């Protein structure tokens, strides 16, 4: 048995048939083809599956797609606007904020949310914000620098 859901993803409305047990991460990746959202531990630990639900970051491996019905979801594909990278994305470019890139979409979405709510975060606040997300490559230093870079851009803008 499937059920019909309508979800706004990155501003665009999608209607689809899903099984109730379909996880939001698989709906995004497999049904909508938005593979920018990664999928790792499957146990709400690693945070690579982080997307925003009504603007707030959540781990999409632990949210059912049916729960997103009539709600809006944001993924990494929606960060870029009119061909221009979000300052957070640009920060990751400038400061070498990624190596393999597996954690990066989730990190950038959380960073975007942080800066939207706290435009001038301290280093501790940045580390706290991304503390539910694992990076096995960078040691986090350059991720923190990337977010700081974006914050500086936006504060001086």
């Amino acid at each position: 048995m499937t059920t019909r859901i309508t979800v706004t993803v990155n501003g665009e409305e999608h209607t689809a048939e899903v099984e109730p047990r379909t996880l939001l991460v698989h709906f995004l990746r497999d049904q909508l083809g938005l593979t920018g959202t990664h999928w790792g531990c499957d146990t709400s630990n690693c945070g690579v599956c982080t997307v925003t639900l009504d603007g707030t970051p959540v781990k999409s491996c632990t949210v059912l797609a049916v729960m997103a019905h009539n709600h809006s979801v944001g993924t990494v594909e929606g960060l870029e606007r009119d061909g221009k990278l979000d300052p957070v994305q640009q920060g990751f470019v400038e400061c070498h904020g990624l190596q393999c890139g597996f954690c990066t979409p989730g990190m950038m979405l959380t960073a975007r949310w942080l800066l939207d709510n706290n435009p001038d975060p301290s280093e501790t606040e940045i580390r706290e914000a991304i503390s539910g997300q694992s990076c096995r490559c960078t040691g986090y230093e350059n991720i923190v620098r990337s977010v700081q870079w974006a914050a500086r851009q936006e504060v001086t803008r």
Partner: protein
Amino acid sequence: MQVPAHFEYERATSVDHAITLLARWGSEARVVAGGHSLIPMMKLRLARPEALIDINELAELVYIRLADGVLRVGAMTRHAELLANPVVGEHYPIFHDAERVIADPIVRNRGTVGGSLCQADPSEDLSAAFAAVDALAVVRGPGGERTVPIREFHIGPYETVVEPGELLTEIRVPVRPGGSSAYEKVERRVGDWAVAAAGAAVWLDGDTIADAGVGLTAVGADHFCSPAAEAVLRGAPATEETFAAAGRAAAESCRPSADQRGPVDYKRHLAGELTVRALRRAVARARGQEA
């Protein structure tokens, strides 16, 4: 790939609707709130409900209100909302202490206060915090509403007094003057379940402890509390000696089990030491000496 087994899905649109759906599905249904305990258990087939009643749309259960000396927290309040709420921080800093060490910020955006209490995991932090402050749970069913003292709410690991067909809707905490509270936890790494944790609430009358509550997490304490430690504290001077005696009573009163988080002796030691630290901090806060 871990995906739950097949289930029927119902989206509740009001508390009354949720109660109707629960009645229709009976004991085979489970309520899902944030889903951060239930969905992982369903992936592992540790839980296999026939139907899920989703209460995420119940905005009527999302609130934190202080009126007539009672703090009321709606069951669908997310952890992040409890942590961000200044009224909670002012009257019961124990909840902010506990929330800061529950999982991580992204999980806290989704997990709920009511879901945590109903999951009844022996290592769940809010259960001990609510036990320390002697909260009251409000449960609604087809016959109406009933209240249950939080110290009678949990009847064992993963078991509560909420019957099939019932829904936890609210937690009430009395706010009394002259008191404060704190929560202390030791975890293996940030965001992990507690090795052990302790919560303390104290009410002072000058330098005397007029009343106190002690909550314990992950150490096999009945109903997440230590009446033995509370008995030591009531009427005693608010001194290090009293805290130490209460710590000893707390350690003796619990029954930790050995697991990958540590042996019995270590957990018992933590139960005592963390009780002391929580008391010390709660008293300092009640005296206005610490934030």
